[in-house]
């Protein structure tokens, strides 16, 4: 103990000076942080007390393995990989494998991949473990880039480096060589060789799967990217093959001590001890097949998009609404695939974020306007200034387009949080757009007429307002899907959503559709006057663009009309419950610490700072609760929904299913109207925004 002195008794004596049972702490330390501390000498909290068997302590990664052991180890490794991504962490899954730990520990020392021996099986095992470790590293990077730690993915990497600097090609080469070695083995049973080959092929496919976010898709060109599709199809076939194998006999052969809590006790570890976690063989294979099927579906759908309307529908119905059905690997890859570091969409060399935002606006209000052509027809100096101002607005719109994509790729819970964050951004952009467009009209008479009247069309403002309303409605209804609201709040949510939907429909029909129809009429009239064939072709292209936009408008309109009618009827049904005493939407239960008015204001606080539409007050809410309800009218409207919506022309399957689930919800509420029992709870319905009332 040279240089150290024993202060045991001095420290313990010093605490007698502490008055009032207070703790003495560093001024830099937040005591709340202390909750994260690991308590030594407590078996439940101290990884240093983990007991390991002799076999676990003395496990030798460099001992020879036979083919059955190799198969068993690889199977457990694949199960561990899927277990990690099933809401678990690396130390209790993948790092519990001593081969994985050896690879990452050796990598810190040598910066090279590890070989467990020179013989065939050792080389095969090495390439497979290195492959899995490389994929862990990729997933950690994906997680750090686009996922939420401890929410989508939990790493706890114990300060290890998972072959981050090793080129993926090197890992792939090793795996391909191992597949060849396995095929050439003369000493092994053919059936075992076949299983091992399939396992290696599966690991190879897993390692190759990040190719997705390096593909460069030419949007709307129908390039199917056949080579990656083949990789995914082969992967699906491989999983199906392995799913038929009974791995129990192979797992029994796995050397004792190969999977243990060794890493938890021996590596840098700020966590408490955890039991090893391994999902079933069945779940492992199902998850693996799901991942490859999902990636395949993303590839096929995204490469076969015909136009911006299809892209919008795909983003809305296949990405945003389905995101929680995707495996975390798919979710991470999807965001990286959709928008790249260079702001390209799907890696397209020609379609960047700025093109996307312009196309989104064209597909709503901007097509064939003075703002889309930028033909200002004013003097050069004014023109320069106007271009500068317009570019600023377009830059802000690019930010919005980026945010819209990010919202869609996040889990549903984060989607709601991100929507909330972006509402203010949209609201202020709406004001800027309005000022810009009105000033352009006042100064230079730059304008497209909304209709036959002199009213300004304000296409930029109109687009932003529409997007804002969409997000506000999503924000409220998503809370129902996420079960955020108390039963007492449900009426207020539908009542408010209905109010927003009314504004959205009004905006849609009196401005967006009117404007687009008017533009089409003007083009038709212009075409009639033309004699030049090439000019007619140009006009025809513009007409087709507008026809596509109007078709897309109509589909969106149908969706929002349906949502409006459902929220309207649900509001009335719930109000009727309130009036007849089967529910109480004006008072919170007695055990609540907050009164209803405060709860109401807190719930709708995100809308308080929004300029248009004006936010609804608690007084208006109370008045609405007293409005009489005609149940006959509700029944009549719910009954007519099925007849009114046929969804002809809807090509996207998930969009169709979503719309059908809304129609089914109307039938569900019809059935509910037959019950006159007290409203007790919300249960799953056909559509996540419209639960069943019990």
């Amino acid at each position, binding site marked *: 103990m040279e240089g150290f002195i024993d202060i045991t008794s001095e420290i313990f004596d010093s*605490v007698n000076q502490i008055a009032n049972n207070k703790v003495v*702490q560093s001024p830099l330390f937040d005591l709340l942080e202390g909750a994260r501390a*690991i308590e030594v*000498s407590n078996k439940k909290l101290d990884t*240093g007390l983990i007991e390991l068997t002799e076999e676990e302590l003395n496990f030798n990664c460099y001992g020879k393995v036979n083919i059955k052991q190799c198969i068993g180890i690889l199977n457990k490794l694949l199960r561990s990989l899927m277990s990690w991504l099933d809401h678990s962490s690396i130390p209790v899954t993948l790092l519990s494998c001593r081969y994985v730990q050896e690879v990452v520990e050796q990598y810190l020392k040598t910066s090279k991949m590890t070989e467990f021996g020179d013989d065939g099986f050792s080389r095969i095992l090495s390439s497979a473990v290195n492959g899995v470790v490389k994929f862990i590293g990729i997933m950690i990077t994906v997680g750090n880039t686009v996922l939420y730690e401890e929410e989508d993915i939990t790493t706890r990497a114990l300060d290890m480096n998972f072959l981050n600097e090793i080129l993926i090609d090197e890992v792939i080469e090793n795996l391909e060589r191992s597949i060849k070695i396995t095929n050439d083995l003369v000493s092994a049973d053919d059936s075992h060789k076949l299983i091992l080959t399939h396992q290696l092929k599966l690991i190879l496919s897993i390692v190759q799967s990040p190719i997705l976010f390096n593909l460069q898709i030419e949007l709307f060109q129908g390039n199917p990217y056949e080579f990656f599709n083949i990789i995914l199809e082969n992967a699906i076939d491989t999983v199906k093959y392995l799913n038929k194998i009974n791995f129990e006999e192979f797992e029994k052969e796995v050397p004792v001590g190969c999977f243990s809590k060794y890493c938890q006790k021996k590596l840098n570890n*700020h966590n408490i001890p955890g039991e090893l976690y391994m999902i079933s063989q069945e779940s492992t294979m199902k998850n693996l097949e799901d991942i490859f099927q999902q990636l395949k579906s993303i590839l096929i759908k995204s490469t076969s998009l015909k136009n911006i309307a299809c892209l919008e529908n795909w983003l809305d119905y296949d990405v945003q609404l389905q995101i929680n059905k995707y495996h975390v690997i798919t979710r991470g890859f999807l965001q990286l695939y959709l928008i790249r570091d260079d702001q390209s969409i799907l890696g397209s060399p020609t379609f960047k974020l700025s093109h996307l935002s312009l196309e989104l606006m064209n597909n709503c209000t901007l097509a064939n306007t003075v703002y889309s052509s930028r033909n200002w027809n004013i003097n050069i100096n004014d023109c320069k200034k106007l271009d500068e101002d317009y570019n600023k607005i377009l830059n802000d719109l690019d930010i919005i387009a980026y945010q819209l994509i990010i919202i869609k790729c996040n889990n549903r819970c984060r989607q709601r949080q991100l929507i909330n964050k972006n509402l203010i951004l949209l609201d202020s952009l709406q004001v800027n757009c309005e000022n810009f467009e009105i000033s352009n009209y006042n100064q230079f008479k730059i304008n497209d007429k909304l209709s036959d009247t002199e009213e300004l069309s304000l296409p930029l403002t109109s687009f932003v307002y529409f997007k804002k309303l969409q997000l506000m409605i999503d924000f409220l209804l998503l809370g129902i899907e996420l079960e955020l609201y108390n039963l007492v709040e449900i009426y207020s949510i539908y009542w408010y959503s209905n109010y927003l939907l009314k504004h959205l429909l009004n905006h849609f029909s009196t401005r967006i559709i009117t404007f687009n129809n008017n533009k089409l009429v003007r083009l038709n009239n212009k075409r009639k006057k033309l004699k030049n064939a090439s000019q007619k072709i140009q006009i025809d292209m513009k007409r087709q663009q507008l026809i596509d936009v109007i078709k897309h408008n109509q589909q969106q309109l149908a969706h929002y009309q349906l949502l409006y009618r459902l929220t309207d009827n649900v509001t009335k049904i719930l109000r009727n419950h309130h009036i007849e005493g089967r529910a109480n939407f004006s008072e919170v239960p007695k055990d609540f610490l907050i009164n209803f008015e405060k709860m109401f204001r807190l719930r709708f606080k995100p809308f308080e700072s929004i300029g248009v539409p004006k936010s609804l007050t608690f007084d208006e809410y109370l008045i609405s609760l007293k409005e009489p309800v005609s149940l006959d009218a509700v029944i009549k409207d719910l009954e007519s929904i099925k007849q009114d919506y046929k969804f002809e022309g809807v090509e996207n399957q998930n969009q169709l299913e979503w719309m059908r689930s809304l129609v089914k919800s109307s039938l569900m509420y019809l059935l509910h109207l037959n019950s006159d029992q007290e409203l007790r709870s919300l249960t799953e319905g056909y559509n996540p925004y419209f639960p069943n009332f019990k």
Partner: protein
Amino acid sequence: MTLSPDKFIGSQLKIQLKDKRDLYGVLTVIDPFGNLLVSNVKESRDEDVREIGLVSVPKDAIDKIFIDSRYYNSLK
């Protein structure tokens, strides 16, 4: 004369546990019962050394506490 406990806050300590492990870290909190909260802890057992972060050390688990003598002298 015994130093007051706040003098030891921020000191680099070596804590010998009764189970023969050594902990090296910075004393961050001490309570009236002699339980310690130590940050940036390295745990050492035989030849193995590893980082375990923020650690709460109950008084009962402690065998001995050491401090660098030069640093100790500067506290007085």
